[in-house]
Structures are given as C-alpha cells and as structure tokens.
C-alpha cells in the first residue's frame, strides 16, 4: 500500500473531534478525491497526510513505513503538496519557484545539478508553462499560477501528490485542464493523486476512489461510483440532486428550492 490510514482521529485544541476513526488504503497510481461540505475536515485530513499535523490516535503509513519515521526532508521526496491560491511576498520568477522543488535533493552548497535542471525542465514541459518561466509569479493569472505550483510538485518527483482544492478559484477551462493533467500523470507516471475538492462532478469524472466526509464526523470510502449517490449527497450536503449518466461517469445537478425548475 502506498498510503494506509488506520483508525485516524484528530481534534484541534479543546474542540470536539473533527475526524473520527478514519481508515482507508490506496495503492500506487490511484486517484482519490476527498469531498464533503465546508468544515468537514477535508483540509485537516490532507494536512495529516502531509505530516503538517500529528494525529491524536491512529496511524498513517507511507510505503509501509509509519509517517512519523520519515524526516521532513525524506517526506518531501515522497509527498508533494499543492495548496489553494497563493501569492508569494517576493517576486520570484516561475522558474525560480519550480526550481525550489529540488530543495530536498540539493547538496550542502545548495546549487542545482544537471539532474535537478532536467527535472525542472520536464515539469515545465509536462504542464506546458515554459513560456512564462521568466515572469514573476505575482504577474501571472490565477490559473497560470496554479499550473506553476503543479509544475513545482512534479519537479519534486514524488510518488504521491496531495492537492487542496487546486481549482476552486479557476474558470471551467482551467479546472478541466488541471484535472486532465492530473489524470495524465496518474496514468503515465503512476503517481498517486489525492485531491480535496468541493466539486462532486470533478470527483465523479476523474477519481477512481472517493472519500466523502460528512460534517458530523462520519465518512464513506470506496470506488467513486459506489460512494456518490443522490441519497448520500443529499444526506451530506443537504441538497437534492438530479443524477445523469454521461459516458461512464454519473454527474449531479443541484436542485435549489427556489430555482426555476424546482417544484417548491
């Protein structure tokens, strides 16, 4: 197992448990979506998986070794993380940002070797972003910036990629573009992808497995097709949906009480 989570529990200081007894396993090269309403603990779970938070009880294993047995540097060679929209303080160029992915591999003098440069160039090629390599990150659009952070995660050359709502501020075209890219990396490079998302339909379309977290601390893990049903979505999000099959994916359309087509 690439990622193995057993009986994971977590609570922030003096608050009730946000994650209760979560267990699941992922093989190398699978695509997991973590979905659920705001405040259900999606980002918390991602932070636990990346080692930023420590579980109260339960265990996380990465490549069959406990997460805490890795040093920060070793873990950075196993797991890369892409976070939500972020604008850095100083005007680093896109090329400099992607190069920082090589930090865990650098020697004492901290200069990139040819192998490092190759990894960076490959990442630019895969994300098709080489044309703005020289531009400061602050001067890119949100979609371009997010692509650069994904390029950085690729240049880190890790088997596992964690993403926290990578497309929440992006338009439709960029959303699909980024998920297509993730899917391609899963298939071509055998990467394990774990993406937190609000968007049930992106999960339905791209992920093999889904972990649906409810606000009350319960969860459902399984193949995406089995986890995402109209009844369960109504239970978890409190919204009725209409399900429609397109190709192999089932999509969900939310039906509001006062929307035009609603019967209310």
């Amino acid at each position, binding site marked *: 197992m690439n990622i193995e989570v057993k009986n994971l529990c977590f609570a922030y200081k003096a608050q009730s448990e946000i994650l209760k007894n979560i267990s699941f396993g992922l093989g190398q090269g699978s695509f997991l979506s973590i979905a659920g309403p705001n405040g259900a603990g999606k980002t918390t779970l991602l*932070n636990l998986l*990346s*080692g*930023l938070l420590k579980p109260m009880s339960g265990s996380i294993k990465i490549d069959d070794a406990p997460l805490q047995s890795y040093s*920060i*540097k070793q*873990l*950075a*060679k196993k*797991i*890369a*993380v892409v*976070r939500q929209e*972020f604008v*850095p*303080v*100083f*005007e*680093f*160029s896109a*090329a*400099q940002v992607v*190069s*920082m*992915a090589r*930090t*865990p591999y*650098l020697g*004492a*003098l*901290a*200069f*990139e070797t040819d192998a490092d*440069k190759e990894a960076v*160039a490959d990442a630019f090629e895969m994300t098709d972003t080489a044309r703005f*390599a*020289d*531009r*400061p990150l602050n*001067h890119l659009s949100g979609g371009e910036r997010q692509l650069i952070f994904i390029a950085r995660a690729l240049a*880190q050359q890790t088997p596992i990629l964690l993403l926290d709502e990578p497309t929440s501020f992006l338009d439709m075209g960029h959303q699909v573009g980024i998920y297509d890219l993730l899917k391609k990396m899963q298939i071509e490079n055998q990467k394990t992808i774990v993406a937190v998302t609000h968007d049930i339909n992106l999960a339905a379309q791209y992920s093999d497995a889904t972990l649906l977290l409810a606000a009350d601390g319960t969860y459902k893990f399984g193949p995406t097709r089995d986890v995402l049903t109209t009844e369960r979505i109504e239970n978890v999000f409190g919204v009725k949906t209409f399900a429609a099959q397109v190709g192999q994916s089932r999509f969900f359309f939310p039906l509001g009480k006062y929307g035009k087509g609603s019967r209310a």
Partner: protein
Amino acid sequence: MTDQLTPRRLIIKIALCLALLVIVMFVCSLVGTQKVSLRAVFAGPGDEPGQNIDYDIFVRVRIPRVILAALVGAALAASGVVLQAILRNPLAEPYILGISSGAALGVIMAVMLGLSWRFLGGSPLAIMAFVFALGTVWLVWLIGHLAGGSGITSLLLAGVVVNAFFSAVIMLLTSIIDSQQLRSTIFWLMGNITEKDFSILFLSAIFIIAGIAGLFAICQKLNVLTFGRQEAQSLGVNPRAITLVAFALASFITAVAVGLSGLVGFVGLVVPHSVRLVFGPDHRQLLPTSALVGAAFVVVCDTIARTIIAPAQLPVGVITAIIGGPVFLLLLARYSKKVGSLR
C-alpha cells in the same frame, strides 16, 4: 530560463561587488580634512612614532574607521535581508524586533551610571548596547513563543510591544539625565562611527563575517521559507529550526553592529530592497551582494559624515537616511516601470 543562478554567475557577481567595495574603501580612506600622500604612506612608519604623519593618519586612523564602517554596513544589510525573509515582510528591518530600543536602554543606563570599565577593548557604551540588544531580542522571541499563535504574527506583536515599552522607559530616563549626558546619548542613538582599537575591530570582524557565512549556508532554505511554514515543510525544510538559526545569527550580527556604531538606520531596510530590485529575490545571491553593497554604502556615508562639516562630524545615521531615501525612490521608480512593462 535566462536568469538561472549558477555558481559561476554568483561568483562573478560577488567578485564585482567585492571589487566595488575595495575601490570605495580605498578612495574613501584617501579623503579627509588632512591630505594624505600615498607615496609618503608607502615609505613606511619611519624609525620613531610621529615621524611619518601621513602614514599614521592613513594606517592608524583612516583604515580602521573605513573597515569599521564596512563591517557595520555589511552586518546591517545582511541582517535586513534575513529578517525580511523570516518575517515574510519586505518592510522588516534589523531593528524591528526590539534590538534598537534594547540597545538604547543599555546605552542610557551606561551613561547615567557613569560606567567606565573596559572589556576586551570595548567601551562600556558598546558592551551595554550589545548585551541589552541581544537580551531584548531573546525576550521578544520568548514572549512571541509563549503567546503562541502562528509564530510570525506573535513575534512581530511582541517586538512592537517591547519596543513601545522600552521607548517609554528611555523617554523617562532622558528627561531626568543632565544635558551633557543627553548629548552623548543622542549622538549614539543617531548612529555614530568613531575610531576604534584594532583589537575590537578584529574581534567584531570575525563575529560578523562568521555570522554572514552561517546565514549564507541556509539561503536556499530562506528562499523556501518566504512561501510560509507549511510550504517550507512540504519542500523538506524544517521551518522552526531554520527560523531559529536565521533569527539567532541575524540578531547577533546586528547586536555587534549596534555595539560598534549605535543605531545606524535605513541601511538594513534600503540596501536589501535596492539589491533585490536589481538582482532579484534569490537569497543565495541577495545575501552576499547586499552585505557587500551595504558595506560600501556605509563607508561612503561615513566619509561624507566626517568631512562635510569638518572639523566637526555628523552622526553617520543622518547621512544614511538622507542619501538612502532618494536613491531608493529612484531605483523603485526605475525598476517598477520595467516590471510593469512585462504585463
């Protein structure tokens, strides 16, 4: 990827800045109220002291003073670079976490108590400034960590509060000391470079150069740290450890500089900014070049301070602010235009 930093490019840039610094130091040691002939200097000290006045002025007065100014400039500029990185704030400067008010309190107390002992060639003012500066930053660090929170914010808040409190105490003390004491304190507060013994110069040089070398070793990690603690950790950098090392070394070299020259302002803010505008934000390049440019800048400012109203001398801090401000605005206008055209 035209601006990739390679060791070769870095060495060339450092060599250029170093050459600039050496030329500036050499020219500035020739400038002064007393004309010095180089030929006379190379003739050597002569058989008995006082025989060759040119040599005495050049070697015993001018050179130590120029070296002192360079050390202070290098320490403040390097420290400014590092504090801006760990606080993730381009407005940070070496004095932001309470060093200045701590040192000032130490000096005022030394003046009031009329201390007169010497330690390792340092005057009581210098030693008290150094000790109080270091004590204050550690107090700020401790308060910041006891207050908890997300590190950076609580650290900044602790700095602001300690600065405000100490400033109040300083006001109280300045209102009760006599005018002669007040004058020497105020000169010190404005940043004042004076001739020092070779022994203290040598010791300070070792401290400051070692401190900057230590900071240079963590520059790539500082690059990553400017993206925040979480990002740093996912890129394999321990944010706590690096912040602590950077903070300790930066406050140490600042305290040494403050002990040497009082509160020379503006260098730690303006030099890192100007160098970043020209050379970009990569700390592996920003730190060494800022240190060298900062050194040259303070040498020039001190030369102006000691010649412009000769035989009297101005505090160097006045000149750094008067020259630094406009120069910085000029760079800002010029380079932000260049960046704007990229869009």
